[in-house]
């Protein structure tokens, strides 16, 4: 009996001290972590709009819907950029993405995956925009541009109000997007996020373009 008590107390103490240490570190790193998150979101929002469009996103004019948040940028009282922050389910959990929409035409300007837990080398083929670096050639990327991703770039120029499915592309069916072989679940996760953003845009177009 006494022995069991000793075991309980010692294991309990180790857990309590461990918890206290985690609480301390969590509190101390909370502010810097949130600042980092906000800065990263701001940088990413600017990458989702066409290159060269200089704009500041207004946090006060954000619109929240079910699973989708729309960020809007104004210049002289006129809406110049619209970006949907959305998510879908991939192979390793949620895939967070940004879908840039052109306020004038309603077309998708760029899809950018901002957070995921997909398998490196496989699922990341459908999510990551990575420039191929070379020992023999300098980077040719301009500021504001993002490296290409064959899958994500298939959405560019498509309607922001349609609903998309994975499949073999046909010329007369713009709603079919070709996925990445070896990364089917990741492709589906990205597609689900885009579809959610498109659905909200379809249903709340007037309010969003206000």
């Amino acid at each position, binding site marked *: 009996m006494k*022995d069991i008590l000793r*075991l309980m107390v010692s294991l309990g103490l180790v857990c309590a001290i461990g918890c206290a*240490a985690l609480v301390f570190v969590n509190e101390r*790193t909370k502010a810097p972590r949130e600042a980092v998150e906000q800065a990263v979101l701001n940088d990413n929002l600017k990458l989702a709009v066409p290159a060269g469009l200089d704009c500041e996103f207004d946090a006060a004019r954000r619109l929240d819907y079910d699973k989708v948040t729309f960020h809007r940028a104004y210049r002289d009282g006129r809406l110049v950029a619209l970006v949907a922050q959305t998510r879908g389910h991939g192979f390793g959990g949620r895939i967070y993405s940004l879908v840039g929409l052109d306020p004038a035409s309603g077309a998708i300007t760029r899809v950018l995956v901002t957070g995921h837990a997909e398998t490196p080398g496989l699922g990341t083929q459908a999510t990551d925009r990575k420039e*191929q670096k*070379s020992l*023999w050639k300098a980077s040719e990327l301009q500021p504001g541009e993002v490296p290409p991703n064959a899958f994500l770039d298939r959405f560019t120029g498509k309607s922001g109000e349609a609903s998309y499915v994975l499949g073999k592309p046909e010329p007369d069916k713009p709603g079919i997007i070709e996925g990445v072989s*070896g990364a089917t679940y990741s492709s589906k996760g990205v597609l689900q996020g885009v579809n959610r953003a498109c659905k909200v845009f379809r249903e709340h177009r007037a309010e969003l373009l206000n």
Partner: protein
Amino acid sequence: MKSYLKEFVKGLWQENPVLVLMLGMCPTLAVSSSAKNALGMGLATTAVLAGSNVVISLIRKLIPGKVRIPCYIVVIAVFVTIVQLLMAAYAPELNRTLGIFIPLIVVNCIVLGRAEAFASKHGPVLSLLDGIGMGLGFTVALMALGGVREFLSGGTLFEYVVVPGWPSFMLFKFPAGAFIVLAFFLAAMNYRKMRQALREGRIYEPPELDCSRCHICSHDDDEHHK
């Protein structure tokens, strides 16, 4: 002084956790698809290993033998979470590329293995050196494996093109490729040992990989605390 150096160096080659002790195969096979991932995972593991080894060595006489393993796991998990939080706050770039690998360290059996086999029997300074040495040995083995796999699969190293026009060879990106490359590494290690034995006039006998060779759980709890 000599023994300190010995504890540090042994993890690098003589008792390399991956190539000799055959510990931590799961992260080894999973994360060695590129040299960069391997380097990050190795360094994060080294940090956790050094920290947990020191703390476990400090509390080794206070915790009863019967609950020592749960206590070690709690200590290791705390360290992994702290590393994760610190990385998210102060090294966001690193966190973005390595974020998903960090929680994997909790289940890395090298960390628990060194806690039980070394830190629970030695002082904090020796345990620290053992942790750093083992961590660096893990990093080096992982990077060698990752470098070979990354190069064979795409002709790149640390994501830089080394040989332009190298055909994409996906096999080495997949887990099957990890097994194949690891097998060649282990075969090379064995070949070296066989030649060495031959030179010394012995006959090389491969180590038996059963419980008789490992002393991690052979001692009972009372003996553990003498």
